[in-house]
């Protein structure tokens, strides 16, 4: 390690700090604006208030509830669909598994607005589906499933599952018993990291949801766009504050879980 008075180190530190300032500065401004009585006059002159947060709950409470509900439903669906796929991909022979993985990841490689439009064209006219919240759920599952599969697959591949399973099989454990008692516990760090990722992404998804939503199914990010366009800056800020309060703990947990998932399977 080189000493800290190295000019290269100082230049790097200043540069990184400036970038950090660019990224964090607006967040701080937004949080402050959300509790400022009058942003134009400033927080010092006009004082602190929780009134804007109150207004947000009056106007947008249903969007918050809907987004949380959809995020949880998306999580359940990706767990049920994704974890078995990750296990199968880890066990199946090379080329076919690679191809299946490729196909599964495709929805993330295509912009949300395109996928959303395609969903509407294919399923928009089918009964009440278009106005039901499950229409948005389908889009979110499509978009988040690859993250669950990848995260779980990585951990399963790193753990020495085949040997453990072979041992269990020789002791007479059937497929289901092995899946529940060996695969799931060993894959749990990856499943946890994937779960947090799925919830975080679903909670913030906008590109696709803007097309998929209807006046009856407005999610939090769509509500945010609505408030930015039609409400005072203070209300938009307060609403953003509510969103950040939901999002940031998830991000912190995600970082922790991801470190744990990649660090867990230490090689001997």
């Amino acid at each position, binding site marked *: *390690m080189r000493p*800290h008075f190295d000019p290269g*180190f100082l230049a*790097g*530190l200043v*540069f*990184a*700090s400036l*970038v950090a300032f660019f*990224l964090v*500065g*607006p*967040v701080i401004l*937004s949080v402050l*604006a959300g509790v400022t009585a009058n942003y134009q006059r400033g927080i010092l002159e006009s004082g602190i208030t929780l009134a804007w947060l109150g207004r947000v709950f009056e106007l947008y409470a249903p969007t918050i509830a809907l987004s949380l509900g959809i995020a949880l439903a998306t999580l359940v669906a990706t767990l*049920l*669909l994704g974890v*078995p796929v990750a*296990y*199968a*991909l880890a*066990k199946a022979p090379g080329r076919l598994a690679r191809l299946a993985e490729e*196909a*599964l*990841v*495709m*929805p993330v*490689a*295509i*912009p949300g*607005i*395109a*996928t959303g*439009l*395609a*969903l509407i*064209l*294919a*399923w928009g006219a089918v009964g009440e589906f278009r106005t039901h919240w499950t229409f948005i759920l389908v889009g979110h*599952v*499509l978009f988040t*499933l690859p993250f669950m599969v*990848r995260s779980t697959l990585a951990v399963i591949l790193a753990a020495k599952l085949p040997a453990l399973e072979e041992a269990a099989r020789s002791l007479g454990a059937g*497929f289901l018993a092995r899946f529940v008692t060996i695969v799931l516990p060993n894959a749990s760090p990856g499943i946890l990291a994937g779960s947090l990722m799925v919830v*975080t*992404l679903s909670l*913030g*998804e*906008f*590109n696709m949801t803007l*097309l998929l939503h209807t006046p009856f199914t407005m999610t939090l*990010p769509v509500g*945010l*766009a609505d408030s*930015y366009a039609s409400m005072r*800056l203070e209300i938009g*800020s307060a609403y*953003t504050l509510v969103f950040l309060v939901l*999002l940031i703990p*998830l991000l912190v947990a995600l970082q922790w879980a991801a470190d744990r998932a990649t660090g867990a399977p230490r090689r001997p």
Partner: protein
Amino acid sequence: MGNDRLALAALVAPAIAFLIAFFVFPLLMMARTGASGPDGLATYLTILVDARYLASLGKTVLLAGTVTLTTLAIAGVAGVFLARHRFPGRRVLTAFLTLPLAFPGVVVGFMVILLAGRQGVVGTIAEALTGERLVFAYSLAGLFVGYLYFSIPRTVLTVMAAAEKLDPALEEGARSLGAGRWRVVRDVVLPGLEGALLAAGAICFATAMGAFGTAFTLATQIDVLPMVIYAEFTVGANIAVAAALSFVLGAITWAVLAIARTAAGANVAAAG
């Protein structure tokens, strides 16, 4: 053994069925709708010849390209710096640099408004200095700032992870052979990071091409491709053109990611 094969197939079946019903089938429907307008299949040609759509496509590619190069430069320097040095406050700095990691485009747009909008700080500072209020949030410049804001965190993470894996002995060796700081960066560090930069750049480019929330928040006059698609679909009710444009946009982002994945070899995690 045969039983296991069957069990594996059964495990994959629900996801595959879901994918076929809600992804493959809709994409096929969209491709068909793209050819259902008055021009028929020629709609796909029209959008590549029509001046308005072509200009929009060009503008979007140019913006995404500029954002990608700028992001790689900024995140590359910051990421290598953080991976290389241990100092008090490093964890906090890293946390700050990756804070907006999962901010949706709409929120990023709002951050740009707070920076450079009508009531933004940049405007206030500029007014105090020059007497003139600087407002650039509601333009292509604002979108550029927004996409940088969005892309830097994830690229910093990718660069950091790759730089941690570089062997410091190689740099030490180059230095002891008399290579200057820039030679070391050009001949040792950059080649070592090539795969990560390629992967991160492809994700950055594809995301900037298809991102929608930031432009939607900032202004309706910014005619990047996703905004044109939205306008054609909602205001113009020109569904065939919207579908054809979506198809072309999806093909571009998918191809960019696929090429980068092949070139980089490693896992190119897809765009958020």
